[in-house]
């Protein structure tokens, strides 16, 4: 059970994001979630998309450095305090987190959080034990 994230190295150059998103659009790839971590010199773009294979091929062919990473996707209610509760679970389980980002679904009244943690299996188990639902690649297309 895991969620795949595409990680793309982006140089701090004018038009870089335009080019990436255009490449994905031209290949009919839908973005579900996006986050970017940037420094003065480069950015790391993280994407959850509906079609990993097509996206990977299209961006690799366009010369981008791209990598698939396993992350944890958690469904949380769209209410105050829900994210905090999920993070508390990880904290209690002593699972270190590198980063997270969130997105909303079109269909349901739910928020989703993408978590990058030190140990995916442990994090998923801890969250499930606490009553959270995980999402996988198969779910992404339906959101």
């Amino acid at each position: 059970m895991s969620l795949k994230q595409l990680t793309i190295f982006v140089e701090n150059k004018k038009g870089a994001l335009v080019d990436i998103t255009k490449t994905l659009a031209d290949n009919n790839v839908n973005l579900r979630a996006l986050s970017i971590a940037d420094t003065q010199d480069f950015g790391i773009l993280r994407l959850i998309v509906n079609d990993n294979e097509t996206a990977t091929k299209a961006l690799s062919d366009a010369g981008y450095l791209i990598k698939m990473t396993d992350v944890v996707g958690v469904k949380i209610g769209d209410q105050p305090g829900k994210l905090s509760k999920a993070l508390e679970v990880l904290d209690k389980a002593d699972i270190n987190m590198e980063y997270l980002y969130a997105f909303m679904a079109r269909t349901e009244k739910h928020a989703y959080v993408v978590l990058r943690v030190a140990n995916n299996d442990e994090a998923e188990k801890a969250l499930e034990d606490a009553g959270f639902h995980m999402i996988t690649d198969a779910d992404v297309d339906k959101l």
Partner: protein
Amino acid sequence: MEKRYYQKEIETMPVEDIKKLQSEKLVKQVKHVYENVPYYKKLMDEKGVTPDDIKGIEDLHKLPFLSKADLRDAYPYGLLAKPLNECVRIHSTSGTTGRRVVAFYTQHDVDLWEDCCARAIVAAGGSNEDVLQVAYGYGLFTGGAGLHGGGHKVGCLTLPMSSGNTERQIQFMMDLNSTILCCTPSYAAYMGESLKEQGYTPDTIPLKAGIFGAEAWTNEMRHQIEETLGIKAYDIYGLTETSGPGVAFECEEQTGMHINEDHFLAEIIDPETGEVLPEGSKGELVFTALDKEAFPLLRYRTRDICVLSREKCSCGRTLIKMAKPMGRSDDMLIIRGVNVFPSQIETVLLNEGYQPNYQIVIDRVNNNDTFDVLVEMNPENFTDTVSGVTKQEKALANAMKVMLGINPNVKLVAPKSIARSEGKAVRVVDKRKLYD
């Protein structure tokens, strides 16, 4: 009346007499080297030259050249011409592992080197009334030791500050009334800025002169330093291979550096063919040490591009003048006073598992060199976290620091993003304005 020369009889000697002196010294020196340096004897034998063929400076062109590559091949003792128990000192070029050069000195060699530096200090107006603040690095680097020794010879009150710690430099300068500052021009400019920030104006700074060298600088930079510090800024030239600073020095005319010709015989050659060019031509500067004992390099190619001139100088010195170097005939870069070869970066990249695709970008910001190295990321090591990437950058920067002796700013870039050449790759982008 302030003393204008340190060794008047040499510095103002008629040109014919200097040439005669050079010829006598050269004949003796070639014999000394031939008999004591098997490495150079072999080069001479291969060229079919014997000491008997060298009857004066007109025969100099018959001798083989030495280059940095020879110094590397012969490391450490291959070019030594005296027994170690007659040597008293070693110096070395700045921190470069792959291409380190070590030079040996007898007491005689130290003395003549310090005399050269003393001539430079006196030419800059120095005497035993002066406080000489030596802010060149002390240690293996020749800058500190050379000017320090010269300061003693002149009788200056010598302040052995070494480089760095600007706060302390300024405190000593102001409290002890330093009148002459010796350091790299970029450090002089930096100190000037710091003094200005602290509210010191040129008339409140006790300095009257500066002797700046070890890196290329323009006349524009000279004027800027002179204005900020309220001094006259003198250029000084030298290299570890020949002894250190003081091979050539500027006088009050500030139109080129007088070469200490009684010790160092200069030639200008075509860097491609090795042919000696007539006086006034632009070419590569070559030095022959005429009376150094321990490390007497004959026809050493400096790789500095320059012009010599024997026009009469208003200072009264008859010593030939060299222009500020106008460039290099090899790919060596001097960054923050340290010699850097692009091939050293390449070596580090290969050692660390990277493709040798890189670009060095150098600039000068606020009179300090910036040193960026762009390296294409190894796709296998790409991670989804910023810390993962910066960690790799730091590791590479550390490996380069060990090799080069100075810290680069490593920036990882996307694979294939550094232009592959249809022709030659652009490995170095030097945005500094170093030469007039």
